[in-house]
Structure formats: C-alpha cells, structure tokens
C-alpha cells in the first residue's frame, strides 16, 4: 500500500493519468488502422497480406534474436546491420558447400562475434550501446576490406531455396514464425530463458543468487548474433549478393520491432511473440502508407512516432508502482 516514490513528488503525481492517455491512444490507433485498412484498395487481398508478412520476415527474424539482448537488460545491439552483412557474405561465400552448411557456418560466425560482445558486457559491465557501436564499425571495416568493396556473389546456386514460396508464402515467413515459437519456448520454459529474464529484472539479485551472468549474457548474445546472421543470409539471397553497404536502416528497423512489440527496454519483461507482433505491425503500417501513396519519409516518420509512443506506454504500464 506504499505510494511509489515518483508519485510522491507533486507534479509527477499526475503522470499516473498517462496510463489512461496511452490506453486511449492505443485504442485510437487501432481504430484508425482498421478504418484505413478497410478503406484502402487491395489491402485485404491475399496477395497484400503475403506481401506484409514477407516484408516483416527478415526484420522479424533478426528482431526475435535481439529480444534476448533486450530482455537480459543489455538494451540493444547497434551492430545488427553489420552482423547481418557479415552473415550474408559468409553465407554466399560458403554456398559451394551446400545450403545447410553455408547457413550453419554463417550463423556460427554471427553467434561467435556477438557472443564475444556479450561476454565483455556481462563480465565487465561494459555499456552495450557503446560496445556494439564499436563492434559494428569493426565488422563493417572487416567486411568492406574482405570483400574489396565489391558485391559478394553466391558461390553456389542453392541460395534460391531461401527465396522459394512453399504454398505461396515466402520461406522467410515460415522461418520467422518457427523461430518465434522456438524462442518463446526457450524464454518461458527453459532454465536459460528464466535466467535471462531474471538477470534483466534485477542484475544484482541475480548475482547474489549465484547466476553466472557473463556466461548467460554471452549465450543470449550468441542467440541474437545467429539470428542476425540468419536474417542476413535471407537478405543476401533476396538480393543475390551482398555488399558492405547492404541495408543501412536494418539496425533501427529491428530495434523498432522489438520495442513496438512492447518489450521493456530496461529488460526483464517481454517475449518473442510480442516481437513477432511488433514486426508485423510495423510492416502492416508501412504497407498501408505505401498503398495510400505516402512517401518513404512519411513511413519513417510514423515508425518513429510509433516507437516513441509504445516505449513510453510500456514504461508507464510496467507500473513502477508501489508494492505492498
């Protein structure tokens, strides 16, 4: 029955009503979305829904991985695009070994470079934002140098499998959904997932309880890195090649998907299914704006507004409220 500290300070007391405001805003947003959807030509066509899902898939795959980093309390990685590019290049270069080995090598490479960052963050409490910016530059430098600045071409033909559309739906969509279910299971029903969430909830308490924070952080980052590389492989297949400049805004699209899903930026609360929803919501809105003839600028603007509103709403709803 205690009153939380932030409520005790005069003007902040009114912030409580923010929760109502955000609920209202969310409801309003939903209504606008539905009305727009119903009044937009071609939106409800099967073709368009497939298009939405397929444009959500690559960002979604990477965002599902990032969810682990955010949940464990390490905010976000800013090396997502650089890791994806590396993943794409490794995948394309190793394709002569066959599709599955190429994918495995690419994901292992992504996992390794990202796990190393996680280890440093977990063991020495490095700032994840700064460290991953550094790692991102480092990776970009390496991929640029290694590729000689030209587009890396596939060394085998099996990349086309990634672009296939079983039952008319792109393979990436299946992979995204499967990954979401797998990660949801890992987070909710395994010792690893439980520890990730508890560390994100309260790192000091986790340390006092004897959890191996560096190791678990490294594993969470490894899962994220493998997912970035997998997304990169799909990207490379989609573009039939990869250059160091590939997909400049990927990092922020992926972060936006996690945050719009409603995973708490400070960690401890969120889920893989939320991230899946976040990726789909963003893709839906982009698609709507596209169909309605808005330009790219408007799409980016709206994405920004959405992220800000949802992040604030998540923070308010996470209820930094009094406990008994």
């Amino acid at each position: 029955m205690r009153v939380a500290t932030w409520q005790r300070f005069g003007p902040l007391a009114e912030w409580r009503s923010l929760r109502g405001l955000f609920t209202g805003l969310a409801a309003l947003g939903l209504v606008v979305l539905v009305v727009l959807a119903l009044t937009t030509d071609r939106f409800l066509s099967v073709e368009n829904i497939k298009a939405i899902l397929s444009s959500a898939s690559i960002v979604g795959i990477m965002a599902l991985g990032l969810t682990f980093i955010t949940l464990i309390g390490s905010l976000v990685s800013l090396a997502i695009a650089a890791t994806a590019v590396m993943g794409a290049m490794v995948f394309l270069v190793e394709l002569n070994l066959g599709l599955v080995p190429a994918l495995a090598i690419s994901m292992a490479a992504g996992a390794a470079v990202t796990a190393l960052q996680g280890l440093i963050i977990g063991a020495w409490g490095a700032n994840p934002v700064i460290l991953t910016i550094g790692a991102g530059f480092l990776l970009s430098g390496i991929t640029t140098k290694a590729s000689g600045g030209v587009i890396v071409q596939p060394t085998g033909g099996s990349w086309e499998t990634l672009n296939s559309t079983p039952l008319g739906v792109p393979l990436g969509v299946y992979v995204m959904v499967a990954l979401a279910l797998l990660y949801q299971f890992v987070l909710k029903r395994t010792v690893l997932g439980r520890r990730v969430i508890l560390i994100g909830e309260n790192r000091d308490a986790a340390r006092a309880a004897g959890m191996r924070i560096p190791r678990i952080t490294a594993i969470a980052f490894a899962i994220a890195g493998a997912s970035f590389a997998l997304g990169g492989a799909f990207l490379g297949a989609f573009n039939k090649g990869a250059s160091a400049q590939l997909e400049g805004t990927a990092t922020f699209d992926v972060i936006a998907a996690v945050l719009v899903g409603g995973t708490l930026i400070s960690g401890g609360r969120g889920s893989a299914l939320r991230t899946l929803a976040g990726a789909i919501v963003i893709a839906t809105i982009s698609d709507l704006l596209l169909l309605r003839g808005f330009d790219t600028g408007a799409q980016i603007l709206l994405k920004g507004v959405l992220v800000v509103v949802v992040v604030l709403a998540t923070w308010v709803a996470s209820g930094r409220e009094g406990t008994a």
Partner: protein
Amino acid sequence: MSPAESMPRLELRGLAKSFGAVRAVRGVSLAIAPGEIHGLCGHNGAGKSTLINMLAGNVAPDAGEILLDGAPQSFAGPRDAQRAGIATVDQELSLVPTLSVAENIVLGEVGAGLLRHARRTRRRAAGLLAKVGLEDVDPDTPVDELSIGTRQLVEIARALGRDAGLLILDEPTATLSDVEIERVFRAVRGVAAQGCAVIFVSHRLGEIIGLCDRVTVMRDGDKVLDADIGEVSADGLVEAILGEQLQPAPHRKLDPRESPIALSVEGLGVPGRLADFSAELLGGRIYGLAGQVGAGASDVLRALAGLVPAATGRVRLAERRLPLGDAAGIRSCGVGFVSGDRKAEGLFIGRSILENLTVAQLGRIARGGRIGGREEMQRGRELAEAAHVPTERLGEPVGVLSGGNQQKALLGRYLLHSGVEVLLIDEPTRGVDVGGRAAIHELLREAARQGQIVVFASSELDELLELGETIITMRSGRVIATYAEGSSREDLLSDLTHREGVAA
C-alpha cells in the same frame, strides 16, 4: 507553553480510507499534543502506512477530518501537507545521491526561490545537521558518500528545516545501528522539546517504549490501543498488535547436534573495511555477527558470498577451498546468501512468488534444461509451505507481499535440501513486523536443526541475543570478542561502542 496547550496539535476525527474492497483505515480518531512523541505501531497492513499517507497528503481520506491546531485541513497533494507544517521522513530514502547534503536539505522546500545563496544554504544546512548530531558532516559532501544511517539523519535534518509543527517518522530506525538510533532519538527529543509534535512509526517495541510519550496500536484498520506509555508493557503491546495472547516464546536452546560440515575462515580481509577475520563455523549452529553499520559484519557475509572481488583470505568448506570473489562459484559450493537489501539485491520484485522461490533450485526441477510447469509448481508449494508463505498466492508478483512475507519468500529459496550448507543472512528481519520476525527466526533455527551452518549479521542487539548461539562482536572491521555460550546486552554494547563515534 501557550494558549494552544489545551488544543491538540493534530486531531483526527473518524478518518477512513478504503482501497477497493479493502478497508485500510476504518474511522480512526486521535489527538496529539504539541511536544508529544506519539508512537504508532501495528502489523504490516494494519493501516499505519495509509494513515501516514493521508497525513502526508499522498492519499485523500474517504471520510473524516484532519485538524491542525484546531483548523480543518484538506490536502490536494504532498505540497499542501508540507505547507501546513507536516514534515515526513520515510523509511525509503528520498535523498538525491549525487547532490550535496546542503543541496538535499533545501531541495523541494516550499516557497524556495529559483536561485539560492550557496553560502547561506550551507550555513543553514550546518545548523540543521548540528540539531541531529551530525556536526562532523561537511554540508558539501555528496550524499552517496554517506552511510545509510547518516543519510537517514540528513533526512530528519531536512524535515526539521521546514519549520514543521508535526514531524512524521516512518520507521526511521529500520536500517540504523544502535549508536545511530541513539542519535536519532536525541534529535527527536530535541525537536519535541521545542514544541513540535512527533509521530514515530516503528516495529521495534523497545524503541516505542524508550522514546514515546503515548502510543497508538492499529490492527486491521482500527485503533485498538491508545495509551500513555507508562500504562503499557511490551507484552501488552505485542498482544494488541497481534490481537491474541502471546504464546510463551519457544526456548532458544537447540540440540547441539554435531554436524560433520565446517566452514573454516582464515584471515578474511577486505581492503579498508575488514581485517583478518578468522573463525571455525560448525553445522547446526547459528552464528550472529554483531556490529554497527560499517563495523565489518556485513562485509564478512558479502566476502564469504563471493560478492567482494577484492576479498583476501582462505575459506574452506568441508575441505573444499571457496573461490573468493566468484559469487557463482561459491554458490555452487553450497553457500547461499540473503542480502540485507531485499528489494535491490534480494528479490526479483516484478516476478512471481513462485519464480522467486525456485530460482536457486531450477536445476532440481528442470530436465534437460526444460522447466516442467507441474514440477515447478510442486516444488514452489513445498518451499512456500516450509517458509510459511501463503501457497495460494504463488502466481502473484512477490512485490505484493508484506515485508515479512517477502523476507520469508527470499529465505525460502535456500530451504529443503537445496544443496545449501551455509546460509548467510544480512539483517534477517529489517523492515519486518513482530509476527514476521518470530517466524523468520524460527525458520533460521529450523535450518540449523537440519544441519546447515547459519551465519547472520545484525545491528540489533535484541535480535543477536534472541537468535545467535555464538556471537562475534565487531568494530571498525575487526573482531572484538567471541561469545560461544551466553553473553549479555552489556557485554555486546560495550564491545560495539567502546570507541567514540562510528566508523564512517
């Protein structure tokens, strides 16, 4: 003193407040005279906090009146209450750690201008600090360099600076050592002597009896006792609080069961905090480390738990050397640690009671890394029963529990053959009410009966004497004496306070 002498400073008439179906305060009337120190006690959840929150302007009453010096008040928020002359000091500290003591003291004052005269502020702060016995604290010191106890005194100085007619102290001593408590008492008596009325909330009945003029006991939202302090005994207070006849306390004599395990500590040290701590600790016994804040008792526990990277020394548990500075490594050797700061370093406050109970035993429940829902629930129920936490609430966030139940839920993770042979507990009953305190002491005794080595640190003499079988007194990071069989309050007090003042 004045014509107001017959007029109460604070009068409550039929004050009531409900939260949903919960009637937190049910029509409480009360009068407190100027200069009176009025004790307020009761269980967690008895309605004390709600009553205080109404007085502080945090919560609006559903019914009833608050009168100050005879004038009816209505507070729209904490600022109104402050303006009316009510100053509140909370158990949870609200100082800004990065600001100086002086800046904190003037922070948030009603009617303060935007710009301040730094020198005047500092002088005013120094004057207020002197009133609470902190003459030796430089007003320019950043608050985060002060001990918790000193911060509490700074909070009181801040409240004094607001020319309050009514000072509310909500469990100010919960985190203090006995020497610091004495300072707080002196400060409170000084304020009261100047005509300020004081409401003093505490779970520690000895403090209520030693300090207050009158006492009010609340239970289930009602006032069940309101008497001059001379008319009540400690047992009478406990009965009023619990609402039942007190059972004769179980005798604290335990089976001196010989347990094969032993924790041998040689030359444990932490630079600047702890020097050369050595002891041979045996299974089945409860060891109490006695010390004021900063005396080193907590440091012993933290170092043994692997939470101090700089710790040195040799510690062996059953011939196995503990890796000092590696909390996870030490935990896997069978050492469990319960922090004195439950919210910051103990519980996962937003997670369920169940997850908090099973956190240290996931390995037992999981198969191939997978947590079975049914197995976890089963284990959670067993642990909740062992720890006396309500089993029907396992799914709720642990933060909804009262302080006592939170502490039990925290201890629960190391019960029932969890693989923990050494249980380290820092301040086992901080912020816990009378009923919870007895239950927690019993849990620790049961743990010792099961053969665990139980080591706790406490700054509370009553707790040490009640619970500790062997008591080790500490001061300034050194061991002063070890009492294997019986020690008196006087022994401990003289060991703890021999030198002037406390280590900063």
